[in-house]
């Protein structure tokens, strides 16, 4: 997985005061990588990276550097800071959060952010670490005492009691890559800290460290009420101070003395349960975005007031000024960023509420009213699980994975509800702005992207690309005609279809526009047909030439159909064809039966009637009773037509033949092509040209696509990748249906039509569908990662997303993901041609590289990351 990253590997064993434990930890983690959490992996990767850079930055003295610098000065520490690896209380791992300072003689080429120069001339490296109690117990007595001493000092000073400084406390440096989620990272690698103070819904306050590489460390929960901070009997509580004090601000203020911290204005604490986003040593551009029109620079060092009333010596400065975030002058970019943050949080919030220890026993006993919130149509039917019965509910909640699925779904529904509400709110805000500002196009765009919920994780640092789609302005018949009249080229047309799609209006003219568009996309009638140019005559000429082109194709189709029918009736037909006919028949009778066009009135089910007008293979197969029903739905003209088209396709493309799933692809095409059999046949041929590899006998095409998607996930969202690996889901079979039939079963009939025309433009990529899949996964990543621990749970969850996905949001995300991916590849290419002397610390850590993952696991040093050819192929789109 991640260990194949060539940049991080070093053959040089780490030698330090704690080298023994460090080495054994390395061994532990390399022996059983599947036990590692994504965060552990992230940590170890970072540690590796750090080590690697040290050793390359000055190879001559690398041994000197790493030797004898094992002791670190403990500046701050706090106990009862826990990681919650699962939603279960019993799995919580309690430990110490600490800030340490080490002398570093390593030239700081590794730190792009300028490190503070210490007075003694040497440089200090400040590390943020978290050590689980378990690990601490195995450390020296001296170290343990050190932690306790410093914490009691912290406690004392927090109480306003001035204790005499009795000198620096030195402890062993925790290993950079540790077991049990331990981490130790340089402050220079921190990108931001997302903080939730404790509240009624967040029992424990929490902090999540995001690194510059796009990785997030596991969230730390401050179990303040168990903390000796105020519970300690040796220290008297000052009057008017509640027992527990929110433990994060002291940490923050200490960190502030070692790094520049800027609080993001994009995150509105009031709306996000008091959430705060702190940027660590932000770049100029990040500052601009996150400060969003803020002009009091002194505010940047302000520390928020402790969340609880009446608490605390913090902050040193008064509370943060309240300025509206959605400010009129805010650039589009900023608005987008803020939206994404906001919605991200609402998902997180929902899943956090559900993971609250108190929520768990309650969930199975929810009153019907609340339960109905979970009742997405078809939910229970599909899951086959009735709402848990009272009495047995708690067993279910703790014992079976279905309970986790249940929670996951609930979290999803709550999050979606939250987002819907938020979107409405944002939209109405945007409307207000529009009216007051006489409407700027950027807000128009943004209002529709209100649920823009997940951005590529590894890209938290770079500017977020803007999605360009404007589905609220679909192509109408008039627009469509104007493209030709204005002499637009095909690339323009494809881009228009990509960004806008066709109008869903039922007007004949608009339906025709879509049909003509599809004929172009599916290669039935060329865009240039009939030439370009305005005027009535130009229009008429195009219409005529188009009709001629159609007629010619229809003739060919009729010939193909007659051919196999004739063969079939000769001597009972070929056996293999008969089998195929049966298969096709069975499938067509169960394709989109909820669509009016394919519905059969119960009284008309009398077979024979429908069969006759079927226009299909008349009398089915040589008069033999092939039209069995046995619970099968009946036939009507249109179903019969589907059957005939597919059988014709079977003979037209014998190597491929008919494969399950093709009827799903054909059915909307048949509808858009006005139920014209011949046109729909060529539509199927066109779509199969693009999707043929999905249906190969040996499934090699699907395997390859899933493997490409897997690599894409590893590059764009390493955490999710690690989670899928842990849950044995890396084969991505749960995406199989999505890819095979292009999300046909995941969206409503009318919606899938809108998706397909976007996909078929191949505007950005011939495999844009993989970015759509990634977008779906990313928007559910929190729920996936928090609740789902087994392959079957992931599969069930993915299957049950059917009917719940919002198309336009997903497409916008997919586009952003594509653009981010493209710029990632460009960056890597630039780097690979760039000077090799200086290794940048902040280099991206893409892990989908050519070499097999096993190879990298040994920690071999690789020269360069190379984007695999499969991934590179994703950048190939339509060309004239």
């Amino acid at each position, binding site marked *: 997985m991640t260990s194949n990253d060539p940049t991080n590997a070093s053959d040089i064993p780490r030698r330090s005061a704690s080298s023994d434990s460090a080495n054994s930890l390395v061994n532990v983690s390399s022996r059983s990588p599947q036990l590692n959490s994504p965060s552990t992996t992230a940590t170890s990767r970072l540690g590796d990276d750090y080590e690697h850079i040290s050793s390359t930055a000055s190879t001559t003295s690398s041994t000197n550097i790493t030797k004898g610098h094992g002791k670190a000065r403990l500046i701050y520490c706090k106990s009862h800071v826990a990681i919650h690896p699962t939603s279960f209380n019993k799995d919580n791992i309690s430990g110490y959060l600490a800030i340490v300072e080490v002398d570093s003689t390593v030239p700081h080429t590794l730190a792009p952010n300028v490190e503070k120069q210490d007075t003694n001339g040497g440089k200090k490296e400040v590390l943020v670490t978290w050590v689980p109690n378990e690990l601490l117990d195995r450390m020296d007595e001296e170290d343990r005492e050190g932690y306790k001493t410093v914490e009691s000092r912290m406690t004392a000073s927090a109480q306003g009691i001035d204790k005499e400084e009795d000198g620096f406390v030195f402890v062993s440096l925790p290993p950079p890559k540790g077991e049990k989620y331990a981490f130790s990272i340089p402050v220079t690698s921190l990108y931001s800290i997302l903080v939730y103070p404790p509240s009624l819904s967040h029992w424990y306050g929490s902090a999540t460290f995001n690194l510059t590489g796009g990785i997030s460390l596991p969230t730390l929960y401050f179990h303040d009420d168990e903390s000796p901070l105020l519970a300690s009997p040796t220290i008297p509580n000052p009057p008017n101070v509640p027992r527990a004090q929110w433990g994060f601000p002291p940490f923050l203020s200490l960190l502030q003395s070692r790094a520049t911290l800027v609080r993001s204005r994009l995150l509105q604490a009031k709306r996000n349960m008091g959430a705060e986003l702190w940027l660590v040593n932000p770049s100029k551009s990040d500052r601009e975005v996150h400060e969003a029109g803020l002009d009091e620079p002194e505010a940047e060092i302000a520390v928020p007031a402790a969340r609880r009333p009446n608490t605390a010596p913090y902050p040193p400065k008064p509370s943060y000024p309240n300025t509206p975030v959605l400010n009129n002058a805010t650039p589009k970019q900023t608005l987008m960023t803020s939206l994404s943050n906001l919605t991200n949080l609402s998902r997180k919030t929902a899943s956090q509420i559900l993971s609250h220890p108190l929520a768990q026993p309650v969930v199975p006993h929810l009153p019907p009213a609340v339960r109905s919130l979970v009742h997405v149509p078809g939910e229970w039917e599909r899951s086959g699980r009735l709402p848990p019965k009272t009495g047995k509910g708690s067993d279910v909640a703790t014992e079976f994975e279905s309970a986790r699925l249940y929670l996951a779904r609930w979290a999803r529904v709550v999050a979606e509800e939250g987002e819907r509400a938020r979107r409405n709110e944002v939209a109405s805000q945007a409307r207000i702005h529009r009216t007051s500002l006489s409407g700027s196009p950027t807000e128009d765009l943004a209002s529709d992207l209100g649920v823009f919920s997940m951005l590529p994780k590894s890209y938290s640092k770079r500017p977020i690309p803007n999605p360009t789609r404007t589905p609220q302005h679909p192509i109408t018949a008039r627009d469509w005609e104007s493209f030709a009249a204005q002499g637009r080229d095909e690339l323009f047309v494809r881009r228009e279809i990509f960004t806008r799609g066709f109008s869903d209006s039922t007007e004949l003219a608009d339906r025709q526009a879509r049909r003509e568009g599809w004929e172009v996309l599916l290669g039935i009638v060329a865009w240039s047909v009939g030439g370009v140019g305005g005027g009535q005559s130009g229009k008429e000429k195009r219409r005529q030439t188009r009709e001629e082109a159609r007629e010619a194709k229809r003739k060919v189709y009729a010939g193909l159909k007659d051919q196999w029918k004739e063969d079939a009736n000769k001597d009972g037909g070929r056996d293999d064809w008969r089998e195929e006919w049966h298969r096709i028949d069975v499938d067509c009778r169960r394709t989109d039966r909820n669509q009016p066009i394919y519905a059969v009135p119960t009284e008309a089910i009398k077979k024979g009637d429908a069969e006759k007008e079927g226009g299909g293979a008349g009398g089915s197969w040589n008069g033999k009773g092939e039209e069995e029903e046995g619970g099968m739905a009946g036939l009507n003209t249109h179903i019969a037509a589907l059957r005939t088209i597919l059988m014709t396709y079977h003979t037209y493309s014998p190597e491929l033949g008919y494969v399950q*799933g093709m009827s799903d692809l054909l059915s909307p095409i048949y509808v858009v092509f006005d139920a014209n059999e011949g046109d729909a046949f060529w539509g199927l041929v066109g779509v199969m040209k693009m999707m043929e590899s999905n249906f190969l006998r040996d499934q090699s095409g699907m395997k390859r696509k899933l493997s490409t998607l897997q690599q894409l996930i590893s590059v764009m969202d390493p955490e999710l990748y690690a989670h899928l690996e842990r849950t044995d889901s890396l084969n991505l079979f749960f995406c199989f*249906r999505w890819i095979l039939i292009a999300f046909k079963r995941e969206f409503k009939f009318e919606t899938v039509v809108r998706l397909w025309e976007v996909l078929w433009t191949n505007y950005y990529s011939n495999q844009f569908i993989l970015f759509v899949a990634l977008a779906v996964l990313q928007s559910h990543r929190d729920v996936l990662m928090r609740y789902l621990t087994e392959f079957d749970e992931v599969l069930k969850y993915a299957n049950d997303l059917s009917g719940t996905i919002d198309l336009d949001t997903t497409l916008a995300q997919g586009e952003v993901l594509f653009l981010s991916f493209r710029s990632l590849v460009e960056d890597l290419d630039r780097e690979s041609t760039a000077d090799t002397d200086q290794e940048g610390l902040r280099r991206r850590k893409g892990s989908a590289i050519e070499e097999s993952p096993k190879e990298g696991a040994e920690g071999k040093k690789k020269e360069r990351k190379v984007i695999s050819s499969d991934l590179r192929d994703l950048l190939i789109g339509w060309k004239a």
Partner: protein
Amino acid sequence: MASRKKVLLKVIILGDSGVGKTSLMNQYVNKRFSNQYKATIGADFLTRELVVDDRVVTMQLWDTAGQERFQSLGVAFYRGADCCVLVYDVNSSKSFEALDGWRDEFLVQASPHDPENFPFVVLGNKIDMEESKRMVSQKRAMTWCQAKGNIPYFETSAKEAINVEQAFQTIAKNALAQEAETELYADYPDPIRIDSENSQAYGCNC
């Protein structure tokens, strides 16, 4: 063996496309029939809790695509199966003749610990249709089942809910036996004998 820890039984349903795998599963779990089921793409599963020999067990029924082409994906789903249900349509000889292939395919891909004794159950579905349409006689089916090591056989109708409950009860029993057998290797006390059901399982009330 009263209330021990709960058991999850994994059951794989195989058979040609259109024989009624999804329908059987839904009839058993959701007690309903619909002719609106679509061809299964990929895989899905349903679960139901039931009591077998005074033990509460959860049965996880896996439904897969029927076209052979998709079987290479089966490995991921077959692993850890406790019982395999082979379904054919009594009105289609071809679907019956395919059973051999399905059985072999399963044994190869799932590679169970003891293939000789791995529990299969055969279901002949769609017996609600006119007798004149029937292509596979009960005798023929039972002969096959006997030859394959006394595989329990049921004739069912997912549409009319005939024999579905009984069939899955047997499936659960045999799966539980298999599960116990498997756990025996892990020092599991009190195994259940595997062959206790076979003789009665032929009972078909139609």
